[in-house]
C-alpha cells in the first residue's frame, strides 16, 4: 500500500514525499466555488461547515492527484489501496480532533474508496480569506425549498427531481457538481427546459465547482466524489434550514455488486451505497449535533422503473437531454453516450425496458446496445459481463442469493426501518426485477432482429449475437458426481504416522521417501528400544529423562534440544506430502519434567512395507 502525505493550507510541501494543497493564497491549487446561493443563506453558515467544505475539497482533489497504480493490478491490486495522511488547518480544531469524528471520517471514506485515511487537524495560524470568496453570483431570491437534492444530469437524478417537483408538487433545490463544462451544460440545459415547462418557481439550481488548479489530476476513479457531493448537499441543506437532503439513484446501481471478477471491493463504485449514506449521516449528525438524514427515494426502484417516472411526469421528450455516460471525453455532437461503459449499458437497458426508445434514438449512442459490433477494444467485455451477471441473478433462488452474491451483505443492515432479513428480501426482489428487465430487452431485441439473426447479418460480436450463439455444448457430469467425490474423501481415515528404520544406511524412512539421518537418526535410535519393547509387550512407552538421553547421545542437553528442533523441522513437510496433522510432539514426544519418547501413536513398518506402493485407506 502506497503512503501519501498531504499538507493542506500550504504553498509548498515541507518534505519531499509530501504534496501541498491550498484553497487560496499564492499556492492555490484547489478551486472551490459555489454559485447562485442567496445572500440570506450565506449569512447562516457556521465556521464548522466551511471547515467541512474545505476538508471535502482537499480530499476530493487529492484523490485525483494520487495514483492508484495501473489497470494491471500488480500484486493483487496492492497499489489500488492508498494510505493517505492529511494535515489540514481548520477553524474549529477542537471538534475535528475528536477521536469519534476522525473514526467516522476514516470509516466512511475507507468503505467508499478502499483507502486508509488519517488526519491531523491543526488550528489555522494565518487568517483565512473571507468565506464569501467561495460563493459567487449571490442572488436575492427566496431560499425556501421543500427538498435539497443532488443533481448530476443523469436519468436517475432527473427522474428523481421530476418525481419531487412534478408528481409530488414540491419545490426543489438542485445542487449540481461538475468537474467538466460538458456535464455542467447538460445540467443547465435540463434546468432551463424544466423552467420553460412551468416549473420556474419550483426549481432552483446551484452549480458547484471543485477542481484541481495548476496541477495535473491523473487519477480518474474519483471514489470520494460522493463525499464531496454530500458535504455540499449538507451545507446547502443547512443554509436552507433543512435537516435532510436527497440523492437520486436507482437501488441496483446504489448497491452496485461487481459484475465481473476483477471488480473487487471499491472498484465497484460505492458512491451512493446505503452504507456510505448511513456513515455520512452519523458524521453529519455529530457535526451539527442533531439528526441529519440522507434520503434516496429511488432506493427500491430499478433503472426501468426510474426511467418510467420521466414519462409519468410528462417529460419523456427531455429524456434524450439527460446524460449518464462516464466518459465525457468521448462525447461528440452526434453521440453523447459511448454505449460501452457500464452506465451507458445500464441506462440503455432501462430506457428500452421502459418502452421509451422513441424518446431516445439509438443514434445517441456511439455503440448500439444490441446490434453494434463490439469487437473493438474491450467494448464487449462490459456488455457480456453485465448481461451474464443479470442472467445469473435471474436464475438464482432467494435462498442462494447471499451465497452467490455475498457483496450484497454489506448493504443489508443499512436500512434503519428494515431488519437485515427484510432488507435482504427486498434487495433480492429488486434485483430479480432488474434481471427480468434485462431479459425483456434481449427477448424483444430477438423478435425485432430475428430475420437479421437468421440471415447472419448481425455482427458476430454484437450483444444480440453473443447472447444466442453457442460454440460448445457441455454435457454435465452425473447428478451425484459432486457428492460422490466428497464422500470419497470423507471416507478416508486419518492417516497413521508410519516410519521404518534402515539400519544399514542409518536412517529413518517415511512413506513419501523423506529420511532422517545423522544426529536426527541417532535421537530416534536412542529412543527406539523403549518404543519397540513397550509396543511388543503392550504397555505404556516409557520416557527417557533428558540427562539420560543426552548421555546416550554423548552430547550436552542444550545440544540435544537443538538437534530435536532440527528433527522436528525436518519432518514438517510430511504434513503436506502425507496429510499428517503435526505438532511438536507428533514424532518425538516431550513431557515437561519427565523426558522424551517416540510418540506411541507412531507405527513402525518394515523397510520393504514403507517403500511399497501406498495402500488406499478407507474408513467405515
Amino acid at each position, binding site marked *: *500500500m502506497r503512503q501519501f502525505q498531504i499538507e493542506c493550507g500550504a504553498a509548498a510541501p515541507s518534505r519531499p514525499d509530501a504534496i501541498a494543497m491550498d484553497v487560496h493564497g499564492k499556492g492555490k491549487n484547489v478551486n472551490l466555488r459555489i454559485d447562485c446561493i442567496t445572500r440570506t443563506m450565506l449569512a447562516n453558515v457556521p465556521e464548522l461547515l466551511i471547515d467541512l467544505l474545505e476538508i471535502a475539497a482537499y480530499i476530493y482533489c487529492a484523490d485525483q492527484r494520487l495514483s492508484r497504480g495501473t489497470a494491471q493490478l500488480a*500484486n*493483487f491490486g*496492492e497499489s*489500488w*489501496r492508498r*494510505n493517505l495522511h492529511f494535515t489540514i488547518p481548520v477553524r474549529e480544531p477542537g471538534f475535528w480532533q475528536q477521536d469519534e469524528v476522525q473514526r467516522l471520517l476514516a*470509516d466512511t471514506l475507507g*468503505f467508499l474508496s478502499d483507502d*486508509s485515511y488519517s488526519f491531523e487537524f491543526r488550528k489555522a495560524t494565518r487568517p483565512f480569506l473571507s468565506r464569501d470568496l467561495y460563493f459567487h453570483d449571490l442572488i436575492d431570491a427566496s431560499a425556501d425549498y421543500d427538498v435539497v437534492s443532488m443533481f448530476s444530469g443523469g436519468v436517475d437524478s432527473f427522474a428523481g427531481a421530476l418525481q419531487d417537483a412534478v408528481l409530488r408538487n414540491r419545490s426543489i433545490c438542485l445542487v449540481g457538481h461538475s468537474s467538466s463544462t460538458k456535464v455542467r451544460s447538460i445540467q443547465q440545459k435540463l434546468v432551463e427546459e424544466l423552467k420553460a415547462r412551468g416549473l420556474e418557481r419550483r426549481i432552483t439550481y446551484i452549480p458547484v465547482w471543485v477542481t484541481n488548479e495548476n496541477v495535473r489530476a491523473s487519477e480518474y476513479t474519483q471514489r470520494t466524489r460522493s463525499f464531496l457531493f454530500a458535504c455540499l448537499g449538507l451545507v446547502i441543506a443547512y443554509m436552507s434550514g433543512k435537516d435532510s437532503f436527497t440523492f437520486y439513484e436507482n437501488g441496483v446501481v446504489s448497491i452496485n455488486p461487481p459484475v*465481473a*471478477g*476483477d*471488480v*473487487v*471491493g471499491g472498484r465497484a463504485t460505492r458512491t451512493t451505497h446505503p452504507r456510505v449514506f448511513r456513515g455520512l449521516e452519523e458524521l453529519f449528525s455529530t457535526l451539527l449535533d442533531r439528526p441529519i438524514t440522507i434520503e434516496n427515494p429511488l432506493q427500491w426502484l430499478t433503472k426501468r422503473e426510474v426511467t418510467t417516472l420521466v414519462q409519468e411526469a410528462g417529460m419523456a421528450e427531455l429524456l434524450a437531454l439527460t446524460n449518464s455516460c462516464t466518459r465525457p471525453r468521448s462525447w461528440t455532437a452526434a453521440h453523447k453516450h459511448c454505449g460501452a461503459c457500464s452506465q451507458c449499458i445500464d441506462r440503455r437497458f432501462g430506457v428500452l425496458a421502459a418502452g421509451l426508445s422513441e424518446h431516445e434514438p439509438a443514434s445517441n449512442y456511439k455503440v448500439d446496445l444490441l446490434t453494434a459490433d*463490439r*469487437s473493438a477494444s474491450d467494448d*464487449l*467485455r462490459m456488455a*457480456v459481463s453485465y448481461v*451474464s451477471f443479470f442472467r445469473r441473478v435471474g436464475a438464482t433462488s432467494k435462498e442462494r442469493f*447471499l*451465497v452467490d452474491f*455475498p457483496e450484497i*451483505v*454489506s448493504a*443489508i*443492515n443499512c436500512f434503519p426501518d428494515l431488519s*437485515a*432479513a427484510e432488507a*435482504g428480501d427486498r434487495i433480492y426482489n429488486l434485483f430479480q426485477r432488474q434481471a427480468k428487465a434485462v431479459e425483456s430487452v434481449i427477448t424483444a431485441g430477438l423478435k425485432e432482429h430475428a430475420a437479421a439473426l437468421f440471415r447472419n447479418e448481425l455482427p*458476430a*460480436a454484437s450483444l444480440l*449475437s*453473443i447472447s444466442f450463439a*453457442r*460454440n*460448445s455444448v*457441455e454435457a454435465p*457430469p452425473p447428478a451425484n*458426481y*459432486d457428492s460422490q*467425490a*466428497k464422500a470419497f*474423501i*470423507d471416507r*478416508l481415515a*486419518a*492417516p497413521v504416522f508410519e516410519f521404518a528404520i534402515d539400519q544399514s544406511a542409518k536412517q529413518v524412512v517415511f*512413506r*513419501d521417501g523423506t529420511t532422517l539421518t545423522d544426529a536426527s537418526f541417532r535421537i530416534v535410535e536412542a529412543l527406539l528400544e523403549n518404543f519397540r519393547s513397550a509396543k511388543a509387550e503392550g504397555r505404556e512407552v516409557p520416557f527417557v529423562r533428558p540427562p539420560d538421553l543426552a548421555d546416550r547421545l554423548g552430547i550436552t542437553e542444550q545440544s540435544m534440544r537443538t538437534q530435536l528442533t532440527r528433527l522436528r523441522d525436518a519432518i514438517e513437510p510430511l*504434513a*503436506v506430502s502425507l*496429510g*499428517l*496433522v503435526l*505438532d511438536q510432539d507428533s514424532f518425538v514426544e516431550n513431557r515437561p519434567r519427565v523426558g522424551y519418547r517416540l510418540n506411541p501413536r507412531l507405527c513402525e513398518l518394515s523397510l520393504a512395507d514403507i517403500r511399497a506402493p*501406498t495402500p*488406499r485407506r478407507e474408513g467405515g
Partner: protein
Amino acid sequence: MGHQRLGKLPAHRLLPEIVRYLLDGGTPTADLVDQVTEVGRDALRRAVKDPVFIEALWLLVRLPQAAGSSAFVDGLAALGLKGRPPGSLPELLAAFDSALERVQRRAAGGATDLGEMARQAALSALAEALQPRLPVLWQPTAEDLRHSVASLRSADAFADLAQRFHSRFVDRVIHYFIDRNLHRMIGPERATKSLNDVEAFNGAIRRHCDEASLIMRAFARDWLGKNFYRDGKALTQDDVRRFASYSVEKLRIELAQRKGTS
C-alpha cells in the same frame, strides 16, 4: 489425505480442457493454462500471509464453537461480532462481514484484493453451509440459527466449510485474472465465444476449484479433530495460520497437477 496416498483425485475436466472453452477449437492453450494456474498458486502463497484470509478462516473455526457454548453472546463479542445475537442468517452474515471489514481496515499496510476476495469467499461458504441446516417449515428463530451454526463445529462439518472457503477463494482469484482479459478471449477472432460459452466456462472453473480443493478436506477434518477435540486446544489465529500453510500448500500442489494435459 496426502497426494501420496490418494494418487489422482477425480477430475471431471482438467484445466487445459476447460480453458479451451475460451479459445477456439483447441488452439494452443498452454500459456493461458499456465497463467491461470500460476495466478491461483501465487494467490494462495500470498493468502496465508493475509490477515483477512486468516481471520476469515479463524472465524469459520471459532464461530460454530462459540454457538455451541453456553455463553454465545460473550463468545461472539470475543470474536469481534458486535451487537445482539443475530436473529437471522442475514444478520449473522452482516455481523461476520463487519468483523472482517474491521480487520481489513486495520491491515492498512498490507491490504490487497486477496483480503477482499477471502472476505467474500468466507461469507459465501458460511451462507452455503448454513442454508440447508436451517428449518424450512417455519421461519428460523434466533435459537434455530444458533443451533444450525453450532452444528458446524464437528470436524466433518468444518472440513466441508473449509473446502468451500478455499474453493470459492480460488474461483474468485481465477476470475480476477480471467475476467480482466475477457475481451481478448471473446469475439469473432476467437470464433467460438458467446455468453453461453462463457457461462459454461464459468461453471467448469467452479467445478475445477471444487475438485482441486477436495484435497484439503480430510486434512481439515483431521486437524480440527486432533487439535480441538483430542487436545482441547482453544484455537488461535496462529494455529489457523499453521493449518492454512499446510492446507494451502496441498491445494497449490493439486492445482499444479491439474494443469497437466488432459
